[in-house]
Structure formats: structure tokens, C-alpha cells
């Protein structure tokens, strides 16, 4: 069995807020001028991470199924004069890099993950396998536009960050992963966000061979 304790969390489920609205709302939380090129997902993940005050020695696990959908759309639209900024911003873990580069905050272990049906369980397992004393598990999605019309982008915009560690003292909740032979169910990132927002307990076969338990303390 793998076990992790949740010591702090930051959740942002912003509904249909536009990227411009998110940028205006959060601009004071980032260095002056930094938000101009940040994506909506970068702003939300960055703000969530910031609330947990990343420390030297933290490991980071990042989870997103679609990642920078708006930058990807913009980059595809920029051809034939491909945009260098949108290309680099569209790369998978850019949401985390936008913030940590802005803060000049180096990280040892950084595991950017993707997937869909079993992404949550896979990301929590990756966090449990990190050797750092504290792991920041973060992620989110941003609502697409023309990619969403074709169902290849998220229909929700949200960001989250969890501070996870091995000690129970002062923890808000406990995650555990146990082995099982039962058939898995899909458990996606938006469903995970809803569980966290509602502070619901959970016991679910969230990946093949893996039961994910969440118990609030």
C-alpha cells in the first residue's frame, strides 16, 4: 500500500471566466509584466502553487489531459508564420514552467503526466513514489474554443495544487493506494476536482489494479 497525507490544498474552479478576466483577477500575484504571456491554465496552476509556497526540495507532479489548449489553438492558427511563443507555451508542462520560471525556482524531480481515465490515480501514485519530503501535486485544464467544438479540448477551466507528505500530524486528509483485482472505473481530473471541492471521501478503483482511497481527517 502507498500512502500520502494531504497537508494543504488550493482549488480554483472558475467556470466560464475568460482568460482576460483570469489575468486581470490574478495579475497582482505574479511579477509585473509576467502575466502578459501566461496562459489561463498557467495563471490558475501558478496561483494554486503559490498558495502552497513551493520550497527548495519539493518534488512536483503535474497532471493535465489537454494542458494548454488555447496556446495550442493559437499556435495552429499561426501557420504558416508559426509563432515561437505559442509553440513553447503549448508544450505540455508549460503551465508549471510559466510560474516557476517567473519565480526562478528550480525543482529537482518534476513529473508532468497526462492521460484521462486513470490520470488521477497515476499522478497520485507518481507522487507517492517521489523521494522528496513534500510533493506538490498540481494540475488543471483550460476551456478550449475551436478544439472544444471538436471535443479535443477541455470544457472546464480549473487549477489545483495539493501539498502531500508522509506525516500524519496536522494533515487534512489521507490518500492511500491499494492493490485490487477488480475492474477499474474512469476517474478523471474534473471529477477529482469536484471531490476535493466538496471534501468528499472516496474509495474507487481508479486505475487498473489500483484502489484509490481518500479519507478526510
Amino acid at each position, binding site marked *: 500500500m502507498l500512502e500520502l497525507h494531504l497537508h494543504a490544498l488550493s482549488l480554483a474552479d472558475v467556470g466560464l471566466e475568460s482568460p482576460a478576466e483570469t489575468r486581470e483577477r490574478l495579475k497582482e500575484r505574479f511579477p509585473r509584466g509576467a502575466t502578459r504571456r501566461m496562459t489561463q491554465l498557467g495563471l490558475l496552476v501558478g496561483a494554486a502553487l503559490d498558495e502552497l509556497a513551493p520550497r527548495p526540495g519539493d518534488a512536483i507532479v503535474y497532471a493535465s489531459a489537454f494542458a494548454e489548449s488555447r496556446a495550442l489553438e493559437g499556435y*495552429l492558427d499561426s501557420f504558416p508564420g508559426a509563432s515561437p511563443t505559442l509553440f*513553447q507555451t503549448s508544450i505540455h508542462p*508549460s503551465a508549471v514552467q510559466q510560474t*516557476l520560471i517567473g519565480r526562478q525556482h528550480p525543482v529537482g524531480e518534476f513529473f508532468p503526466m497526462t*492521460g484521462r481515465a486513470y490520470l488521477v490515480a497515476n499522478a497520485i501514485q507518481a507522487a507517492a513514489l517521489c523521494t522528496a519530503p513534500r510533493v506538490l501535486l498540481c494540475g488543471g485544464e483550460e476551456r478550449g474554443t475551436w478544439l472544444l467544438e471538436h*471535443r479535443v479540448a477541455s470544457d472546464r477551466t480549473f487549477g489545483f495544487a495539493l501539498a502531500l507528505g508522509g506525516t500524519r500530524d496536522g494533515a487534512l486528509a489521507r490518500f492511500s493506494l491499494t492493490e485490487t483485482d477488480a475492474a*477499474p472505473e474512469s476517474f478523471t481530473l474534473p471529477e477529482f476536482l469536484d471531490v476535493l471541492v466538496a471534501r468528499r471521501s472516496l474509495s474507487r478503483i481508479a486505475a*487498473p*489494479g489500483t484502489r484509490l482511497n481518500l479519507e478526510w481527517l
Partner: protein
Amino acid sequence: MPLAVAGGRAFDEAAPPNWFPALRELAATIPPDGWGTARRPVFVTSSNFGVGSLYAFRTTGNPAHLAYGTPHACVDWLTHELGWGANVATLSHACVSAHLGLLLATRALQAGLAERALVFSFDFISPFVTGGFNALKILNAGFPAPYSERPTGSIGLGDGAAFAVLTRDHGDFALTAQSLHNEMHHFTANRSDGAGFAACLAPLRSAANGRKLWLKGHGTGTLEAGRLECAALTAAFPDRPIVSWKGSLGHTLGSCGLVELALALESIRSGHAPGTIGGAAPFFPAAISADAFDVSAFDGAVCASNAFGGAHAAFILSHA
């Protein structure tokens, strides 16, 4: 610009992607073992997955491309086509992606979550990728000359795919001292003091513990990163021969760590490592091996890769 595209493959994308036959041919050589079941996890890594299909959709309007355009759709399709179970974790961190799969698979084995693990990595170039690298002014008409001291650097991009089967306690070769470091300094440049390279290599230097290792660097052919990498490798492992193979393979992006692991492994097995293809003197101040060399007197190799965002990854490969 130099592009190393798999033989016979058209550059513009088809649906299903025209790189799939090459991938299926490779996958057919994986020893069958119930991959993707509970105790046989698969770790799929890529930088681009099927994103070339989104470019094809945007260009042609053909919705058939959309089925391969997102990482999860691409991996779900591959999983089905290759006959794997659903126990698949997917990682994407640009050109260190394969290293992350190797490290996470190693940890899963060490934690007793798996008896064997398959790490599968691929990246196939497309107009999406080359357009981006070209826009960043990283590509030009020159061929890559890794670690060469010359006025202008050049890189070549290449298709790449590879796999590794990892076990906990048996096998002919071992990966030890796997290390990661992320500078978070700049999206496309490294810290000018080389601290990121040094931070990644430090644990390997300790783990080497006097063993005699040769060094397989990242060596894409860009000047500044090449210079910094040479300095860091030389500081950590003085006088050990350094090679890069991207002048021959091209830079195979997210798969490069695994593609080059396969070559390093075969080098150790055969006793001979390829030299720095494309590179020519004058080199940066380091023990660059331009020609093939005998590795039989060495105890193993350091294999290193770097990526956008100042990401660094490395491990030691040796006989078990």
C-alpha cells in the same frame, strides 16, 4: 534543414498517422508479457504524441485526424492497436520524457507495485514540430556538429522510438543513480553558469564512486548548451570520453533518452561505441571522442539528456 524521417514515411500526416507502421514493427519485438495488466505496467512517454494530427486537421479539415490529436486519445489508440491492457501511465516533459518513464518505472518496481515494467517512448516529427523549432530559430540549413566550436550551431530533428523492459532484480544491465533537475530559469535557454547541468550530474558523480565511465551527452549541436554540457561533464568526470550521436540520429525529441540508451547498451555489449558523428575539431574544451572507441575497459556509461525549460536528466548504465 536536416530531418531524419523514418524510411518511406511521408512528412504530412495521414489518418491513422503514417508513423504507426514503424511503431507497430518496433512493438512486435517487445517480449510478450501481458503488458498493461496490473503487475505489468506500461509507461508511455513522448513529447508530441499525435499532435501532428491536429496540424493535419487544421490544414485539411479532415476530422479523421482528430482521433489521434490529444495525448490520451493517441495513447488509448496505441494501447488498443498494440494489444496492451489499460495499466498505462503517460508522461510528457519534452526531450527528457523517456528518462521520466525510466525513473517512474524503476520506482514502481522498487516499491513492489510491478514485477516487470515496459517503458515505451516515441516521437515523430511533423510540420507542427519543425514549424516550432524553426520559429525559435533553432533550425537552419546546416547539419548538426555536436560539441564543435564553430560560428553557428545547427541541429537536426529525427523520428525516434524505443522501448525498455525493466525488472527489479535480474537482467544483464542496470540503470543506477537516475537523476533529474529542472532549472526553471528560461523556457529555451540554460543558466549561463551551467549550474543546472552540474546539479543533475552531482548525484551520478557520487554514485560512480570511482568507477570508470564514458559519457553519452545530449549534444544536439547548439552552441551554448553544448559548451555548458561539455564543461559540466568534464568537471564531474574529468578526462572521460564524451560522445553525442545526434549528428547521425537527429534529435529524436522525447524519445532520445531511450533511443540513445539502446545504442549505449549495444555499445557496452559489443565493446565499441560510435563517435560523435558530424562533430569535427576544434571542439569545446573536453575529451570529445570524434571517432568510434573501445569501451571494454570502462565500467559503464553516463547517459544524459536535456530539454526545454532547463530540464536535465541522466543515469548510469552498466552491467548488472
